[in-house]
Structure formats: C-alpha cells, structure tokens
C-alpha cells in the first residue's frame, strides 16, 4: 500500500473515533500518501473555533492544524445537509463535491473506516 484514505463519518467529541482517525492518519504520513475524508457526521470536525478546554478533552481542530501536511477533504453535500455550509469552517480544509470525494477514495490503495 502506498496510499490510504481514512474516512471519518462520526462527529468529534461524542466518540473517540475522530481522535482515533486523526492519530491514525498522522502516523500514516510517515511513508504513505494519506487522505482524511470527512463525510456524514464527520464534517462537523470542519467547524472553526472549537474550544474543548471546558470539556476537558483534546481539541481536535488543533490536531488538524498540527498536521498541516495531512490532506483533509470535506464532502460538501454532507456539510449542506447539516446546515454547516454557512458557518465558518477551518480554512485549511478542502471542500469537495461528491464526484471528487469518491474519486479520492477510488484513487487510494485502501479505505479505512473506524
């Protein structure tokens, strides 16, 4: 495998899956071509201004920023369905339509869903 696509389809904070997907994607940067795709409820991770201090858990947006070399794409139809398109989003993320999102999946050697 030379490339891996991690698909995150669960919301951040309510479950460890977003944290797990970010960590797994980060370690995979070492030697592989990595894409993290936010899809379904995973697109909530794209909201700008997350502050998890009072919740006492890691700030997942900060982890995204920390791995600037990680390619993160956001499934735009999922954003629209969730009324997130009008909100401020993390600017380093790439919004993609369904066609481009699927092509990114198909262009990777494997797809991992947590």
């Amino acid at each position, binding site marked *: 495998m030379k490339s891996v696509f991690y698909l995150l389809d669960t*919301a951040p*904070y309510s479950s460890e899956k977003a944290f797990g997907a970010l960590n797994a994607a980060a370690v995979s940067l070492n030697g592989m071509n990595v894409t993290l795709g936010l899809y379904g409820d995973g697109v*909530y991770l794209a909201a700008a201004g997350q*502050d998890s201090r*009072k*919740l006492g858990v890691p700030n997942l947006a900060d982890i995204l920023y920390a791995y600037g070399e990680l390619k993160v794409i956001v499934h735009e139809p999922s954003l629209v*369905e*969730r*009324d997130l398109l009008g*909100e401020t989003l993390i600017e380093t993320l790439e919004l993609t339509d369904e066609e481009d999102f699927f092509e990114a999946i198909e262009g990777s050697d494997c797809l991992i869903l947590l």
Partner: protein
Amino acid sequence: MKQEQCDVFLLTKPPSSPRSDLCLKLAVRSGNARLYLAGDGVYHLLAGIEELPGCKIFACQEDLEARAIRGKEKVTVPENFYAALIEDVMEQCERAYTF
C-alpha cells in the same frame, strides 16, 4: 420555581440519528417540552430546532464551545447545565426521556 407540568428530554444525538427524530416527535407531542441539548445534541441548533412548537430549548455551554456552535436568542444556556437538568428531571417534570 413553580411552573406548569412539562416533559423533559435530554438529547445527545446529532440530527442525523434516528434517535433524534424519535426524540423530537415525542417532544412535539408533549406540547410542553423542555429539551436539553448536550453532546452532539447541540448540533440541532444549526438546523433551527428552537422553532419547534411547544419546546423550550436548553444547551450545554461546554458542548457548544467544543463543537464551535453558537447559542441563539431563543436558546437558554444555563450557567450550570446539569444542575438545571437534574432539577427539572427530579422535581419539575411529569416525564423524563433521554435520547
């Protein structure tokens, strides 16, 4: 803190969850629902849940902040969300549901 009989709903699921649908249907049926949004439940604010008929909405401050969701005019963000919720659940409401 006397008030007319209400039903309390704690909703921690995002709008995509079938459990959210069930919760909101029961809340609308109640006619006098106090809907407490915690966890991913706060994402319902994006979809305009505060317009739901017969529902008073409460949201948890720390969950709003973590998820970068803004409060809204018709939405109460209690200083102590869990104290308000427990008071309502234990003393004020007729029925209490968690989704």
